[in-house]
C-alpha cells in the first residue's frame, strides 16, 4: 500500500512528519490527533487509508477510496500566542498547491478559504481543528485530503471533484506527493510565525475570484457582492452597495 521507506527518503523536514503514524482505518485523522494523549509530539503526521467518519465543514462527509488518495492530519503543538492562526489555514492550502505545481506542473486555483481546485474542480480540501483553553489556542490539527489516484467520482457534489490522475493522465506516487507537501508545509509554518503576509500573498496570487462578483451562501442566508480582497487574518472583504463587510463564514460561489 503506502511505502513508508520511499516516503521517508524524500522527507526533508526537521519536525513535520518525523513522528509518522500510518493506519488502515480510523474514524477521522483529525479527531484522533486532536483527542489523543498518546500522540503528542509537535509535527506528528497521521496518514489513514480509510476514514469511516471523514468530514469537512459542518460535518459534511469526506469520502475517499482506500489506497488511492491521501487523507492525513498534522498535529501542531506550540505557543501560538501572537500568531494569526488563519495564516496556518491558508498556508496549508498554499503548501498543497505548491506541491501539485512542482510535481505535475498543473494549474492550481484557490477557492476561499482553503479549497484547492483545478479547472473549477476540487482536488484537495482542508479542515483545521484546534482546541483552546482559557483564551489560548494550544493545539492545532491540520487535516488535508487530496484526490490522488482515484479514477472517477460517482455521486453528486456541490463542487465536482477531480484527481491528480485525471488531470495528469497517469498514476502518481503518493509517497512523493506526501513528502513534498510536508516539506513545503514546514517552510510555510515558519512563515506563519515570521512573515505571515507572504503566505497571504502566495494565496492571493492563486485566487482568480478576487475582483469578481460572488455570492456567499450560509444556510438560508445569501449575500451578494464583489470579492475585493482578503484582510490580514484571511477574512473575505466583500464590497456590497456602499459598504464593505468582513466575511468569515459560508460557501462562496461565482455569480
Amino acid at each position, binding site marked *: 500500500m503506502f511505502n513508508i521507506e520511499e516516503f521517508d527518503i524524500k522527507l526533508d523536514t526537521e519536525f513535520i512528519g518525523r513522528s509518522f503514524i500510518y493506519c488502515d482505518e480510523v474514524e477521522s485523522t483529525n479527531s484522533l490527533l*486532536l483527542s489523543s494523549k498518546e500522540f503528542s509530539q509537535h509535527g506528528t503526521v497521521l496518514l489513514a487509508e480509510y476514514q469511516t467518519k471523514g*468530514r*469537512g*465543514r*459542518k*460535518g459534511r462527509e469526506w469520502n475517499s477510496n482506500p489506497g488511492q488518495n491521501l487523507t492525513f492530519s498534522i498535529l501542531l503543538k506550540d505557543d501560538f500566542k501572537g500568531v494569526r*492562526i*488563519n495564516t496556518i*489555514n491558508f498556508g496549508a492550502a498554499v503548501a498543497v498547491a505548491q506541491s501539485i505545481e512542482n510535481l505535475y506542473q498543473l494549474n492550481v486555483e484557490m477557492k*476561499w*478559504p*482553503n479549497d484547492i481546485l483545478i479547472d473549477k474542480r476540487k482536488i484537495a480540501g*482542508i*479542515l*483545521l*481543528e*484546534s*482546541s*483552546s*483553553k*482559557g*483564551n*489560548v*489556542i494550544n493545539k492545532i490539527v491540520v487535516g488535508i485530503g487530496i484526490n490522488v489516484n482515484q479514477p472517477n467520482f460517482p455521486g453528486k457534489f456541490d463542487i465536482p471533484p477531480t484527481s491528480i490522475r485525471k488531470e495528469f493522465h497517469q498514476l502518481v506516487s503518493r509517497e512523493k506527493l506526501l513528502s513534498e507537501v510536508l516539506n513545503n508545509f514546514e517552510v510555510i509554518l515558519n512563515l506563519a510565525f515570521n512573515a505571515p503576509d507572504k503566505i497571504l500573498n502566495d494565496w492571493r496570487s492563486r485566487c482568480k475570484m478576487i475582483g469578481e462578483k460572488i455570492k456567499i451562501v450560509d*444556510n438560508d442566508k445569501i449575500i451578494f457582492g464583489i470579492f475585493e480582497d482578503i484582510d490580514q*487574518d*484571511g*477574512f473575505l472583504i466583500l464590497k456590497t452597495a456602499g459598504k464593505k463587510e468582513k466575511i*468569515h*463564514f459560508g460557501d462562496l460561489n461565482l455569480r
Partner: protein
Amino acid sequence: MDLNLLKKLIKMVEQSEITEFTVQEGELKVKISKNSKQPAQVHFQPAPDLSKPAVSVQAPAPQAAESKPTVVTSEQKPSKHYEIKSPIVGTFYRAPAPDADTYVQVGDIVSQGTVLCIVEAMKLMNEIECDISGKIIKILVENGTPVEYNQPLFLIEHV
C-alpha cells in the same frame, strides 16, 4: 464618587473597629466590609432606581494582605461566576455537526477539559475547552450566530 474620598473611607474602615460600612451618594451605593479571615470587599451597586444606567467605577489596585480591605468592582453578577470567552472571531456552534447533540446544556456540571462549544472561522473549527470546574448557569450566545474576539459565551458558577 471621588476616588480620593473612597480611599479615605477604606482607610478609615481599615483603622477602625467597624466591619461593615455603607454609603450612598446619588445613584451610587458603596459598601465596604472587613473580615479578618477573608479579604474585605467593596461592592458597587447602582441605587434601586433602575431606570438609570449603572455607574461604573475604576477601583484602585487591590491589596492582598490579610485583614486589609480590598476593592473589587462588581458589575451586577457575583464574583463566583466565571465567563468563558471566545479566543477568535467566528461562528458559535453548540454541537459538532448540525444534527448532532449539543456538547453541553444549562445545568451541566463541567470540569477542566470539557468541550463546551466550537467557534468556526473559515474552516478552522476551534473547540473551546472549559478551564475551570463548575456548573453552566447560562449560555450567552445563540447557536449559529457570529461572535467577536473575547466575547463571553458561557457563564459558569464555581462549585
